[in-house]
């Protein structure tokens, strides 16, 4: 059974058909890339998966549970985390505080009135957050304000936030956009190291796509026009057409 099952999802923005009868199955443990020209509906599809957008039609099942009509924080609690195009972190807080938040979320659920919990009881959770940070190579920056980090480190921090909750599915929206080459390579390495977590990655950089993805789906004008292994996609006539079509505009 696939971990994520998108069935006949359609979404309209006014008259614009952003997604049309999209069907997609993601197998557990795989890295699945979504590619396609600008405006094809890739980010829209991710927003449907995180509960940000409500489709007009269709269903999305995650691990056998429906995802539609579920709030973003509940979707995250089910085990879906998202890495944004621009690293979404808590800028005015320290790196450690940034990662402590998801650790609390993992223990307490989406809300708990623990207004008087002392530092002693928080200690094991903070230590766990420290381990997570160290694992992603930010140990030296533990108490630095998050907004003073370099772009690459912000991305690492965001990953640490997402991973601290031990997600089962990680959605990545152009994780290397605007990055220098060595930062892109670092990100690829980071993602390759995360074994066992299912990943859906939207990406423009084909280098990144081909070094990470086991399976690729191609979206164009809100529809999936091709699906297959990287080799199959490279030579697919429809894919070439979709990309060349865009290039001519």
């Amino acid at each position, binding site marked *: 059974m696939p971990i994520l099952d998108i069935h006949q999802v359609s979404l309209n923005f006014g008259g614009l058909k952003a997604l049309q009868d999209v069907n997609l199955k993601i197998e557990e443990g795989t890295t699945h890339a979504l590619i396609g020209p600008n405006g094809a509906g890739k980010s829209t599809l991710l927003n449907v998966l995180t509960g940000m957008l409500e489709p007009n039609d269709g269903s999305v099942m995650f691990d056998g549970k429906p995802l539609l009509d579920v709030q973003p*924080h509940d979707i995250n609690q089910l085990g879906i985390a998202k890495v944004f195009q621009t690293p979404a972190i808590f800028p*005015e807080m320290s790196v450690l505080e940034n990662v402590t*938040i998801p650790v609390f*979320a993992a223990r307490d659920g989406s809300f708990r009135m623990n*207004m008087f919990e002392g530092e002693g009881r928080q200690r094991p959770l903070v230590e766990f957050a420290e381990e997570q940070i160290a694992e992603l190579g930010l140990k030296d920056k533990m108490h630095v304000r998050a907004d003073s980090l370099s772009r690459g480190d912000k991305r690492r921090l965001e990953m640490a936030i997402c991973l601290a909750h031990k997600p089962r599915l990680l959605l990545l929206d152009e994780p290397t956009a605007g990055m220098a080459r060595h930062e892109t390579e670092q990100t690829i390495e980071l993602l390759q190291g995360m074994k066992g977590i299912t990943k859906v990655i939207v990406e423009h950089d084909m280098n990144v796509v081909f070094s990470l993805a086991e399976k690729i789906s191609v979206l164009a004008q809100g529809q999936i026009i091709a699906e297959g292994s990287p080799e199959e996609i490279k030579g697919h006539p429809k894919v070439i057409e979709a990309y060349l079509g865009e290039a001519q505009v």
Partner: protein
Amino acid sequence: MKMQQGFFERNRSVFIFALIALTMPFWFPLIGGYSGLDTKIMVFCIFVVGFDLLLGYTGYLSFGHAAFFGIAAYTTGLMLKGFSDNIIPAIIVAVIVSTLVSVVIGLLTLKRTGIYFSILTLAFAEMFHSMAMAMLQQWTGGENGLTGMPTPMLFSIKMQGDAVFYFITFVAILMFYVAKRIERSPVGLMMRAIKCNQTRLEYTGINARKYKLLTFVISAAYAALAGALMVVYEPFVGHEFLGWHQSGEIVIMSVIGGVGTLVGPMLGAAFMLYFENVLSVDLGEQWLLVLGMIFMVVVIFMPGGFMEAVSRLQARFTQK
């Protein structure tokens, strides 16, 4: 032994506040403060500390907190008049009533952010204000205010002079300690995260809406407690307790002192009440002009308020 040291170290600001507050009757008259003003400062310390949890931590600027202050004040007054002159049941009922109102207002206003939230809270507060002035006049005394309360009693102690000062100061110290505890708790962390990045917080599995409501209600409970104590301090409730002027004053106190620091807004409250009542004796109405100028200077040159000045000084001294 080690734990105890940690306790003192962690709560240093609470002890310093307690020391300054409890010795006020001795040093306050030396700088021209009169007895009674110190009590009023303590009442507003409670108000602004709670308000800071909302404004300074979650970043939600309420222009309607006078509603909770005023509702609790009226409730306390009516309880003292109609039920018992003992302040304990009066305060408890007042805080409960006002806090319940805040749950409803919070649910309705927190759907919006920024200026829309501020305007909505203002609108609700003005609604209560006009209700007190007209519809509920027979209860509230309308324009004349609620008067004729018996001398408030703490069981057998008359709430006058020193007794009322020490009682209210004790509550203020306790409430400051509670706020510090909240600040350090997971809830405090979520409050700050709301101000930083609500989207990321939602995508991290946190129900930001519930934490916002909790913070709103906590700050309203602080305002309510202050409102109830205001009546204990002076058995009178004026309609202006509910007015926008009252809400605005709290905002100005917080900003002058430095939001998000808990201590700063208390400094702001003390500063404003002191100047308003002591220095303005010579200035008269001109006082508002001076206040306006002080406010502008702080906002333009020291957006972090008095606390920014304090930390700048601290940095300079430690450098040397």
